[in-house]
């Protein structure tokens, strides 16, 4: 017997221990939603004169909620029971009191739901939290906003174990407080509307709702503004209820104004510092885009492109939303500047709306006001907010991708392409450089998705060109947005020093490789008397290094502006480099041409070959100096931008070792090239140099065409069906577009053709000379012909 008792107790204890923690939500909590509906239907029935039905519905709601009330915390239980008693009394008798009681009961339940969900989430009880959230409200969706989902996702994450209880509780609280604060403000507006129309029951309901929502956000208000402010808000809400009872529009409006004044700058769920910085960044980024879009859409006071005006309006609305979100913080820092900023943003809204209706203000007007707003922002912002501005790039990119998808769906491919260029342009402005340093594989995937594809996913360029608005475009946009979300997190997080070192070394090495190959190949061939050609080449390279250093200093202060023009500057310098390289190649292959047909150049060349002073006015010297400069500066500029961004990200101590490593590798390649070429016989060395330079030229042409396409100076015509790995573009400058491939093939054909033509000319000349000169004089001529080669050979031997 005793053993059995022990066994039963043990079993009971085990069962209790194994049983899941019981949910804290009251049994039947979900029926609270039905009760809400019944009370609403009761109010409607009363309004329609169906008094008996109204009473029945109130009684039904009372039964439901009476079962729930005892399980609620005492203050809430009392409030709910008082409201139910009022509803019972008023049903079928007094519409205003019924409306008031209904609103009070409902907001009391909402308060219980929030409190219960947060408490149970803190305990890690996802199931209980989910139960509490069955009774909640959502923000009314608008054109730009949707109902928040943070609370739902937080509970799901808590259940899956991917979110910690405290974090989940915080998300739930933030989502619900944000919702009920919005509802409070809506209730105040609706109260004014109801009073103007003379709808007394509706007015009573809205006033009670306002009080109920205020009670929900009350603790947050108290903690932010203090006890006396909270008491003042309480008094203002009392005043609103009294005014609602009078139902005089003027009194109601005055009471609502009192409450609204006390709520100015209040945010029930304050943004955490990271979110504040993000909103601040969005405000900055979107504001800068407003005058750009507006400028594209007007000429004088005439609207030329209505679409651009709509874009400007969208960006301005986003500015207003971001400003509203951080205005509490800004008001705390400088109320006057914040109010001026708010007025400018509101004024821009009116100006843009007028432009949308066909009455455009000059673009300078919009620019001037935007500039003033940016000045104010510069004074208002914390330093951390200024740094976070680039994080808002991802929001702008996301918005542009949304517009791309929307435009594609309605078949407006011009707008879709514009949106694509805009999205990529923002990415290029600053994010790309940072991402390349800290997450190059992620950077490659994003580049691929923007352009020519990544794995099985087609790139946006191809899809827009193809006018493919089907599932593939949607998938690509979604894939790109997913990658960009990851990039946003990566850019915002810290990276390991090892990754920064290796990635910066890789980029410096790759960017420097082209320049070093050109310089090394040429220098290898400059032996003997030709050794003096090294000076202008190295001088040009040296100037380029100095210029790159100066660029670094300038970029320290004006990185944003510089980055905007980075790609265009690179494009221009690249064209110069191609031109100079073609010239040098031409000179390289056509030595016989110079010496045979241009007496002046020939004489100068002889002077040079005999060791005369190399004058910097000679074409070859200038050409070599220009080649040295353009080759190095082209790469130097882009590398500086990258290093600037990476230094901001990871610090100079992490970046410098990587740079040194990359430079060492680059110089090693240069030294190796010279070493290998020196071991070749002279003629073969010349040929090897020519081949190497031609190869570099082809790469240069490919990357330059790509750069022109990025900045929109050349069209993009993808080669359908051609998929190339990322390294083909990164290392060989080969991109799957007709423009790029044709240009590269053309460059190679031009160079090889020039060489073959020169060889043919030489062969023809030899034949002419041999056939015209008597046999006795042939050896002397032959010696003269061979003179340059012999001179070169002698130099090689030295």
């Amino acid at each position: 017997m005793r053993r059995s008792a022990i066994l039963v107790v043990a079993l009971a204890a085990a069962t209790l221990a194994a049983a899941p923690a019981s949910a804290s939500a009251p049994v039947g909590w979900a029926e609270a939603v039905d009760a809400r509906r019944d009370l609403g239907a009761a109010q409607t029935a009363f309004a329609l004169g169906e008094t008996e039905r109204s009473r029945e519905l109130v009684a039904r709601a009372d039964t439901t909620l009476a079962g729930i009330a005892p399980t609620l915390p005492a203050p809430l239980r009392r409030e709910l029971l008082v409201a139910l008693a009022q509803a019972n009394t008023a049903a079928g008798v007094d519409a205003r009191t019924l409306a008031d009681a209904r609103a009070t009961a409902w907001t009391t339940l909402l308060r219980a739901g929030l409190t219960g969900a947060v408490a149970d989430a803190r305990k890690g009880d996802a199931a209980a939290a989910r139960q509490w959230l069955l009774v909640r409200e959502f923000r009314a969706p608008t054109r730009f906003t949707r109902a928040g989902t943070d609370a739902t996702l937080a509970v799901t994450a808590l259940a899956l174990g991917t979110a910690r209880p405290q974090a989940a509780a915080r998300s739930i609280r933030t989502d619900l407080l944000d919702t009920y604060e919005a509802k409070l403000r809506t209730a105040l507006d609706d109260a004014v509307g109801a009073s103007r129309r003379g709808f007394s029951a509706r007015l009573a309901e809205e006033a009670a709702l306002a009080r109920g929502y205020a009670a929900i956000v009350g603790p947050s208000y108290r903690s932010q503004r203090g006890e006396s402010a909270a008491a003042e808000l309480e008094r203002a809400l009392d005043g609103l209820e009294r005014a609602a009872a009078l139902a005089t529009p003027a009194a109601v409006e005055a009471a609502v104004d009192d409450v609204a004044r006390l709520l100015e700058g209040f945010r029930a769920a304050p943004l955490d510092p990271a979110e504040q910085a993000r909103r601040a960044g969005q405000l900055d980024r979107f504001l800068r885009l407003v005058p750009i879009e507006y400028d594209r859409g007007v000429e004088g006071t005439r609207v030329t492109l209505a679409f651009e005006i709509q874009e400007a309006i969208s960006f301005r609305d986003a500015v207003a939303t971001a400003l509203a979100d951080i205005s509490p913080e800004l008001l705390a820092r400088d109320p006057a500047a914040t109010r001026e900023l708010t007025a400018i943003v509101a004024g821009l809204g009116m100006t843009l709306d007028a432009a949308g209706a066909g009455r455009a203000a000059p673009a300078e007007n919009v620019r001037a006001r935007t500039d003033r707003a940016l000045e104010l922002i510069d004074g208002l912002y914390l330093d951390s907010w200024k740094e976070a501005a680039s994080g808002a790039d991802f929001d702008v990119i996301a918005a542009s991708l949304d517009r791309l998808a929307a435009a594609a769906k309605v078949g407006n491919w011009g707008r879709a392409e514009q949106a694509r260029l805009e999205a990529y342009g923002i990415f290029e402005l600053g994010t790309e450089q940072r991402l390349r340093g800290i997450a190059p594989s992620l950077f490659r995937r994003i580049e691929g998705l923007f352009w020519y594809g990544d794995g099985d996913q087609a790139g946006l360029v191809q899809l827009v060109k193809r006018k493919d608005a089907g599932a593939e475009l949607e998938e690509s946009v979604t894939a790109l947005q997913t990658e960009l979300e990851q990039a946003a997190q990566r850019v915002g997080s810290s990276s390991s020093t090892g990754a920064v070192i290796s990635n910066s070394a890789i980029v410096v090495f790759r960017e420097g490789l082209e320049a070093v190959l050109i310089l090394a190949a040429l220098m290898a061939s400059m032996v003997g008397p030709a050794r003096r050609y090294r000076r202008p080449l190295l001088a040009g390279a040296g100037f380029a290094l100095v210029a790159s250093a100066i660029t670094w200093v300038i970029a320290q202060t004006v990185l944003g502006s510089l980055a905007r023009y980075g790609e265009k500057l690179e494009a221009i310098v690249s064209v110069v480099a191609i031109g100079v390289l073609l010239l040098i190649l031409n000179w390289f292959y056509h030595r016989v041409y110079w010496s045979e047909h241009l007496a002046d150049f020939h004489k100068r060349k002889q002077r040079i070959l005999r060791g005369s002073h190399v004058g910097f006015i000679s074409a070859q010297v200038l050409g070599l100096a220009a080649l040295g400069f353009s080759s190095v500066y082209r790469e130097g500029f882009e590398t500086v931008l990258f290093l600037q961004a990476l230094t901001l990200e990871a610090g100079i101590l992490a970046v410098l070792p990587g740079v040194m490593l990359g430079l060492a590798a680059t110089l090693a390649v240069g030294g190796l090239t010279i070493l290998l070429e020196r071991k070749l016989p002279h003629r073969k060395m010349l040929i090897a140099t020519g081949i190497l330079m031609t190869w570099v030229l082809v790469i240069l042409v490919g990357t330059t065409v790509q750069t022109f396409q990025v900045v929109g100076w050349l069209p993009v015509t993808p080669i359908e069906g051609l998929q190339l790995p990322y390294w083909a573009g990164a290392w060989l400058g080969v991109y799957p577009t007709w423009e790029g491939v044709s240009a590269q093939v053309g460059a190679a054909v031009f160079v090889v053709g020039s060489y073959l033509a020169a060889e043919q000319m030489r062969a023809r000349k030899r034949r002419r000379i041999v056939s015209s000169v008597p046999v006795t004089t042939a050896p002397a001529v032959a010696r003269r012909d061979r003179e340059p080669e012999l001179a070169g050979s002698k130099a090689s031997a030295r």
Partner: protein
Amino acid sequence: MTRTTPLTAAIVAAIVLLAGCGGDDANDASQTTTAVETTSGGIDTRDLAGVKSYLTDHTAQLTGATEEFAALAEEYHDLAKSVDYDYARLLAEQREEVSRILEDAKKTWIEANPYYEQVEGVVAGTPSLAEYDIILDAGSSKEEDPESAVPFDLKLSDGRVLEQPGNLFNLTEGMLWGTRPDLTGQAEPDLDGDGKVEFGEALPDALVLASAAEAFERYAAELDTEARAWGPTASDAFTALVVMIPTMSEYFGQWKESRFVQGDAADGDAFNVVSRLSDINDIISGLEVVYDGVEPTIAADDQAGADQTGTELEELSAFIADLRRQEEDGRRFTPEQADQLGSDAQARGEAVAGQVSQHAAKLGIEIQQ
């Protein structure tokens, strides 16, 4: 010929190794994300086939009705042209014929209206089709609201151009029932010859009516073509539900200002022939079809949630249907009652839309802008 030394080979190898090295942060794989793994088993778009066939059935009917409407408008135009657009003379000489044509046109219009309203939820809520809602039913005129104005102009055969004149349903309603006096002929439109002009008697401007009817037929046909080419996605369906269900407030507001509530005091030029309640009922019915298409997907993840949302949507639909029945039975609601009803419907609609938003978030389905 050169020989590559071991040192050279070592340098080459080191450089190749360096080139191949480097990558994302070592912590990459361990980075936690804020995305929540969905518990859904995936979205089966076959469930949405019913939505598409519902849509195309209605767009086909709408196309037929607008063709008929255009033919009647052309007939009316021919009559007006025969009297050099002298509407007083037209009525004097051709009253019977004119009355018959306009009566048939009104009947056709009333028939066409629910064909569209029953799919308005799908059309307006699907971004790739939404422009047709602007054109047919929701767009304003340039004067009213440039931001939501229709994207077309009407070019009349006499050279006049009506720039962005408003959506085609409202435009043609206004002309046929006289709520757009600026688009009617200059004559007393006593169509039944009883000596008085009552509501609904109007002589439309024949050129405008013909042009509007032609545009109506054209855009209806385009919508039908687009609908047949449409491949509904889960995102489309969820977006339609989230965007359209909470429009109760706006539609009830229009109902409140219409003749059905305000009587003769109404000064709006639309929603005076077919009650907006009827439109709302049709829209919600269409959205119920959409919800039926996504319900299996939601239920696979959250059966209880799917049941709750389905029930509340049904109750909203029943609420609207009951009001419509009462109105059709002759009941006239006061403005305050209409306001209360609208507020109630709005609260219900927001609750359903909010729940759908949560389901979409858990399933990782995008609600489009």
